[in-house]
């Protein structure tokens, strides 16, 4: 119960996000527009997965055995996010309940994996994956805006433009958020020398 209040807060927030997502009408409204589908629903589901990871220490411990330095979790999350940026994947999620279930499943697992892996990943590895994601989402965002036709059967061109601009903003926001979240460790790494990044005390505590 050491962190009862932030944990409880996160749980309440996650539940507040998860409950509406379970209501078909709310989900339908979010998924009716390409931009809100990708830039509201996706982050919500990833966030729910990340919060859930806080309540599943056993699952995190089991995952740790196949996730040295967090590489498995970061890789999984990167591939999941890349997959759901493919236009036909968005159409498939709308056309088939099974694909939509797969979307919710993989995105929440990506949130779980990111939360779990971030407690053990060295900054260099994180920089690689965060940078890669930023590069990818910015490129996809520009492609969405450049496309002369509708890329998704289910989405109008104006939603596609907004989704494209949103992805470019997201790519910048992710890098900034990562720098802010890791500013201590990045400074520590510099202060202690690059040869002992693993010795950061915060990391040891997180791993237990």
């Amino acid at each position, binding site marked *: 119960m050491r962190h009862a209040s932030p944990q409880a807060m996160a749980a309440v927030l996650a539940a507040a996000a998860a409950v509406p997502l379970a209501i078909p009408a709310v989900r339908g409204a979010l998924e009716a527009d390409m931009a809100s589908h990708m830039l509201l629903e996706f982050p919500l589901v990833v966030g729910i997965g990340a919060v859930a990871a806080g309540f599943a220490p056993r699952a995190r411990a089991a995952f740790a*055995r*196949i996730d040295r330095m967090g590489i*498995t979790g970061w890789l999984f999350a990167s591939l999941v996010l890349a997959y759901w940026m*493919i*236009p*036909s994947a968005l159409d498939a999620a709308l056309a088939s309940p099974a694909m939509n279930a797969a979307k919710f499943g993989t995105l929440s697992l990506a949130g779980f994996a990111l939360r779990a892996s971030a407690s053990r990943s060295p900054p260099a590895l994180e920089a690689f994956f965060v940078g890669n994601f930023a590069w990818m989402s910015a490129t996809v965002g520009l492609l969405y805006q450049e496309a002369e036709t509708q890329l998704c059967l289910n989405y109008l061109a104006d939603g596609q433009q907004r989704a494209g601009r949103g992805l470019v903003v997201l790519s910048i926001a992710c890098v900034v958020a990562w720098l802010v979240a890791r500013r201590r460790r990045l400074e520590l790494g510099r202060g202690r020398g690059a040869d002992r990044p693993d010795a950061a005390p915060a990391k040891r505590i997180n791993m237990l």
Partner: protein
Amino acid sequence: MTPADSPGRGFGATLVAVAAILAAGFAAASQLTLGFRAWTTEDARRIAVVERPVDLSALPVVTPEGSERDLWSSGPATKAWLVTFIYTRCPTICLALGSEFQQLQVALDAAPGVRMASISFDRAHDTPVALGDYARRFGADPRRWVVAAPASDEALRRLLAGSGVVVIPDGIGGYVHNAAIHVVVPPGKLVRVFGMEQAHEALAFAAGLAQ
């Protein structure tokens, strides 16, 4: 400390997991994009139809002249259909298409056995009268160019689902859909999908089938 935390141990399991995730990711993306050939559903549909023609079920329709029990086999001389989807209220873009189809209709004289069908997905509005107005506006000759609407909502749903056409409201009272020229051979096999700009390729392909 778990075994994974001690230096030099646990990387084997991680490497296996990484390899499995890469393989699964590759397989999933390859399956979705038909081997990295199509990134949109429309591109995938056009490729898939070439490789696996789609059996559309019988299509009961209403036309300005009356009704047909099945469009695809209406007229024994018809060997191939060039099918497009329309709604008669459609403004500018469809007007341009309609006049392009007028020219195509003339070209059909050189391709016996090929007919055009413009099928409305707007059953609520496109009554036989509305379909007739549309046909007259573009001078559609029913022996060459059939303007029709599915006779039931179920027939429309099956047709759209079978051919992979998705119709969505455009937000200003009309519709947007993945417009294309569909080549259908009796008794209802969708064999090829061409872009709207490929009308003459579509005609040449259909004429080849009709010979």
